[in-house]
């Protein structure tokens, strides 16, 4: 329980416990209904077929209302059950089904009847899935890179697209009826004798079916709630259920009349997107802005704040109960099975005023109380954000579950404006997933999160003249590092490689997007994204108002550190010869000389994140070789309607650093083979021993103007460094300086916990960034002997 924010009500605590207990399960109903629908509607165009299947799922899948739950609607047919999406890929489900409860993480439970049903319906899909389509047409070069782990792009073929914020603002203002009327008017004007317009009509029909399906889903819940109300003996629960029934009859079809109905409408739209497609990072946009009129109305009508908080907490539990069943290969990229349902608060109004309101505070408080991994809470920082609000954010950070993250208006808004986004739209941006940003209701899917590029692996391939040592496969014929005579030669090879790999990652994106468009188009969320109805196109066809793509670049700091170490130790100081370094890397630093070389690489060359210009500039130079390739490429929507259609950089790598690291042999930054890479744009593990201010100074040298896809920075914070009021004010000042003066894009703080410290006891060298700050004490960073550790642990626990 939070001392500062207080405790949730008994109902919320019970519901929270129940979700925890249920864990992760799989529901087979969606797979069955979808399969039947595909068979039944075989002759229809794909977008219509899918809309009709969506309708069948929403009208046939078993529904339930959990005891105590105030909001209706769930993803599966029972609590915490993940639906199955056979249209994306099935082979892994058939292969892994019997072992998913034995996984080392992201465990799922599948009941025997569910398994039986899956075994019955899934084989029909073999050869018909998105993944099958994509694999059939990937060009050979790109496919090889995908197979050996240089580029990871196939994930969306297996597990869906997501990364979208639909126009919730409009859903709340007009209800789905508003969208339906727009569709009706559009259809009336179409000339069906014209090819393009006839195609538009098919999309619009599909959108209409999908919107009706969601309304019908709500009505089914109204009936269920009415039935339950009759049965219950508890008068309080009865009136709750009747309130729920009334809401479900009304929203999301019509605009909500109360805060409660607003939440219910919001949730139906979110959960139905999660049932329609298999994407994660279906985000809620600027929740505190869209919902504020209803919240204010509730307060004006005399609602008690605690009851509104309870509703908010209930909403976060709904988000938390959503599940995504991922194949093991992908599950490892997204540790902990998150859905990345981002809620954004704070920021500015379109005329640059502070947008924080009472609801922003209530969101902070409710999120702190439920203390869960969902929603992913982002605060939009700007210069005018009040001390009062910052201080409240810091209180949430102190709760120690990594939230909220800050995104910085001062950098992001100008970034967007440079991309051709209007000022008004740029001011309305929100986070999607984790650090990525988009214009709510106007952006296409996956403005970031397309192909992941493994930088350190590429450097290793470059050093071996085009051979991937892990798989033994040759990618191109180049010069071997052992025969190089200058650093410039190596950098030249790097630059050539970047040009090649950048292109291949776009090839993967192009083919993936082409197949998503052809095989799994979506009508429901397209209907809720601006310009899709006007253009009669879904998002992947170019229906969105804006459309950009950003891949994710992984291991930036490792690459910069490795190149720096090579330049300094091999070519400038000549402490290691090219051959010697290559041998050490090939053998994973075997033997005494290998270990000496590793220590030299680790300790005798500067590291990114310590405010050292030499390595920071090298990191930027290496990254720029990739970024300068991007302007020449276009995504599949370019020229088909949206503003944009171009690529930009991004580093919101989530847990990809771990899994991508497992595909990379030893690197010249002293990292051992197959260990994790640096996370996002954060420094490599344990190397930022000069403190956050130094990390911030290093980060300020990154080319933020080219990285609209997000610059992820995670920082550790020991509880004792935010113990007192004055400590909190100091943290606030440091954050403000980072954002106001040092081009900070994003920062997120994790409070150092006991587990981290215990780990540090075993591997002190990996935890040099555990900053110990005590008055008058000079911390010798490697001095983490057991006694010191125990001391730090006991200090830590004083404050938790």
């Amino acid at each position: 329980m939070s001392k500062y924010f207080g405790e949730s009500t008994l109902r919320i605590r019970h519901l929270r416990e129940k979700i925890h207990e249920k864990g992760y399960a799989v529901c087979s109903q969606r797979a069955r209904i979808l399969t039947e629908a595909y068979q039944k509607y075989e002759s229809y165009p794909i977008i219509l077929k899918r809309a009709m299947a969506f309708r069948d799922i929403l009208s046939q899948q078993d529904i339930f209302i959990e005891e105590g739950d105030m909001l209706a609607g769930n993803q599966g047919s029972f609590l915490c059950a993940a639906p199955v999406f056979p249209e994306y890929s099935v082979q892994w489900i058939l292969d892994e089904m019997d072992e998913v409860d034995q996984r080392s993480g992201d465990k799922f439970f599948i009941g025997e009847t569910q398994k039986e049903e899956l075994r019955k319906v899934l084989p029909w899909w073999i050869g018909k899935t998105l993944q099958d389509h994509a694999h059939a047409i990937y060009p050979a070069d790109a496919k090889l890179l995908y197979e050996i782990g240089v580029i990871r792009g196939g994930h969306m073929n297996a597990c869906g697209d997501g990364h979208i914020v639909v126009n919730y603002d409009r859903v709340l203002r007009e209800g789905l009826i508003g969208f339906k009327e727009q569709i009706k008017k559009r259809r009336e004007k179409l000339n069906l004798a014209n090819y393009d317009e006839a195609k538009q009509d098919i999309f619009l029909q599909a959108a209409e079916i999908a919107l009706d399906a969601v309304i019908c889903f709500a009505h089914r819940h109204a009936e269920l709630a009415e039935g339950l109300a009759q049965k219950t003996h508890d008068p309080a629960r009865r009136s709750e259920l009747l309130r729920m029934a009334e809401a479900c009859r009304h929203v999301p079809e019509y605009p909500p009349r109360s805060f409660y109905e607003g939440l219910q409408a919001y949730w139906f739209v979110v959960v139905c997107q999660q049932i329609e497609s298999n994407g994660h990072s279906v985000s809620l946009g600027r929740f505190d802005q869209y919902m504020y009129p209803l919240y204010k109305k509730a307060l004006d009508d005399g609602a008690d704040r605690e009851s509104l908080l309870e509703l908010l907490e209930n909403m976060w539990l709904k988000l938390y109960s959503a599940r995504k069943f991922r194949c093991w290969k992908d599950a490892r990229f997204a540790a902990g099975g998150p859905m990345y349902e981002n809620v954004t608060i704070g920021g500015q109004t379109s005329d640059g005023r502070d947008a924080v309101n009472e609801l922003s505070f209530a969101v902070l408080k409710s999120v702190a109380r439920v203390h869960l991994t969902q929603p992913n809470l982002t605060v939009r920082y700007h210069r005018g954000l009040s001390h009062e609000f910052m201080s409240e954010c810091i209180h949430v950070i102190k709760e120690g579950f990594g939230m909220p993250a800050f995104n910085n208006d001062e950098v992001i808004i100008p970034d967007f404006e440079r991309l051709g986004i209007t000022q008004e739209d740029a001011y309305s941006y929100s986070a999607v997933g984790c650090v990525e940003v988009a214009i709510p209701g106007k952006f296409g899917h996956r403005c970031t999160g397309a192909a992941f590029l493994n930088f350190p692996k590429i450097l290793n391939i470059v050093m071996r003249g085009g051979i991937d040592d892990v798989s033994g496969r040759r990618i191109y014929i180049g010069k071997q590092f052992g025969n190089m005579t200058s650093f410039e030669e190596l950098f030249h090879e790097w630059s050539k490689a970047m040009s090649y790999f950048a292109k291949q990652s776009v090839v993967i994106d192009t083919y993936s997007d082409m197949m998503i468009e052809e095989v799994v188009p979506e009508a429901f969320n397209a209907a809720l994204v601006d310009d899709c109805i006007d253009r009669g196109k879904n998002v992947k066809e170019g229906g969105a108002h804006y459309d950009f793509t950003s891949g994710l670049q992984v291991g930036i700091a490792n690459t910069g550190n490795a190149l720096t170490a090579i330049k300094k130790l091999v070519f400038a100081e000549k402490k290691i010869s090219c051959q010697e370094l290559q041998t050490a890397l090939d053998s994973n630093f075997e033997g005494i000389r290998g270990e000496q070389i590793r220590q030299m690489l680790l300790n005798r060359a500067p590291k990114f994140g310590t405010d050292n210009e030499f390595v920071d500039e090298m990191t930027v130079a290496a990254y720029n070789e990739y970024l300068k390739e991007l302007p020449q490429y276009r995504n599949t929507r370019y020229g088909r309607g949206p503003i944009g259609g171009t690529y930009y950089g991004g580093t919101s790598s989530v847990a990809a650093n771990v899994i991508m690291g497992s595909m990379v042999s030893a690197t010249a930054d002293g990292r051992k083979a197959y260990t994790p890479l640096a996370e996002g744009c954060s420094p490599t593990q344990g190397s930022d021993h000069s403190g956050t201010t130094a990390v911030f100074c290093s980060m300020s040298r990154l080319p933020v103007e080219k990285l609209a896809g997000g610059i992820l920075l995670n920082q550790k914070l020991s509880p004792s460094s935010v113990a007192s009021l004055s400590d909190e004010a100091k943290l606030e000042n440091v954050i403000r300086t980072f954002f106001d003066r040092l081009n900070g894009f994003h920062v997120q703080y994790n409070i150092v916990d006991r587990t981290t410290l215990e780990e540090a006891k075993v591997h002190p060298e990996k935890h040099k960034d555990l900053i110990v700050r005590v008055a008058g004490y000079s911390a010798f960073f490697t001095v983490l002997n057991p006694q010191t550790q125990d001391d730090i642990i006991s200090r830590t626990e004083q404050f938790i």
Partner: protein
Amino acid sequence: MKNPDKKGLIFDIQRQCIHDGDGVRTVLFMKGCPLRCAWCANPESQEMKVELAFLPQTCIGDGACVLACRKDAVKAPGVIARNLCIYCGECTKVCYAEALSLIGEWIDPEEACDRLLRDFVFFQRSGGVTISGGEPFFQAKFVKELLDRLHSKAIHTAVETCGYAKREDMLEAKVDQFLFDIKIIDETEHIRWTGCSNKIILDNLDALYQAGRRITLRFPLLPEINDSEENLKATADLVRRYGLKELHVLPFHQLGSNKYQMIQKEYLLKKKAIPTNEYLRKVVQRLVENGIHPVIGG
């Protein structure tokens, strides 16, 4: 040519310190101290000379140090005959794992100033430079010149001092805030635990007060050493006498213990337990009863 006399011997520069003065501080740690406090958390600061430290956990045992030593002082990895060592640092140059390192670096005020201002952009909101040690005034000439430089750049300056210094140095130095340690009021006890009388210290404190300087008193809280009823009362009296409300209470910790081993120095309080929360609460309460406002941690 730079004048070597101007150089100071330092052993660390630490950024983003938050308990050593107002705002975010960069702290410069000076070597050399007149006191020998039994609880010292920076034992490597005491001697006014370069020292050699050895950290066994990081040693890879390659023996490069033994080969590099020209005085036959490094017998085996981690086995150092300190009487033979001339602190030339040859062994540290080949110790890539940094198990061996030299503590102490001669630096001139210009360079020190540059390195201390890396966080300038953060100071502009709130913060500055704190000089700590050791005892900063042990190298008064260097410290005064450095403080002049910082002052001329309008940087907020603080010193963490034990108070045992020449009065003129303390009064002349461009210091915005003195973080002044009061360890034990009773002179005999002070001598017993720190090796020095506190007469000069208390006189200096008085002089700074008379000169109207900003002083923050700090009290290292050491169970069973300076936590007696009389000492707490006498300390609180001192705080009130100088019209100060706050007393920074710095609870005893063991974060320095490993550093004793690293420089092979004897540490008398090795086994001493760190204070519990319960204990801290009681002490705070007693100080409050004596009419002052204690702040834990500074």
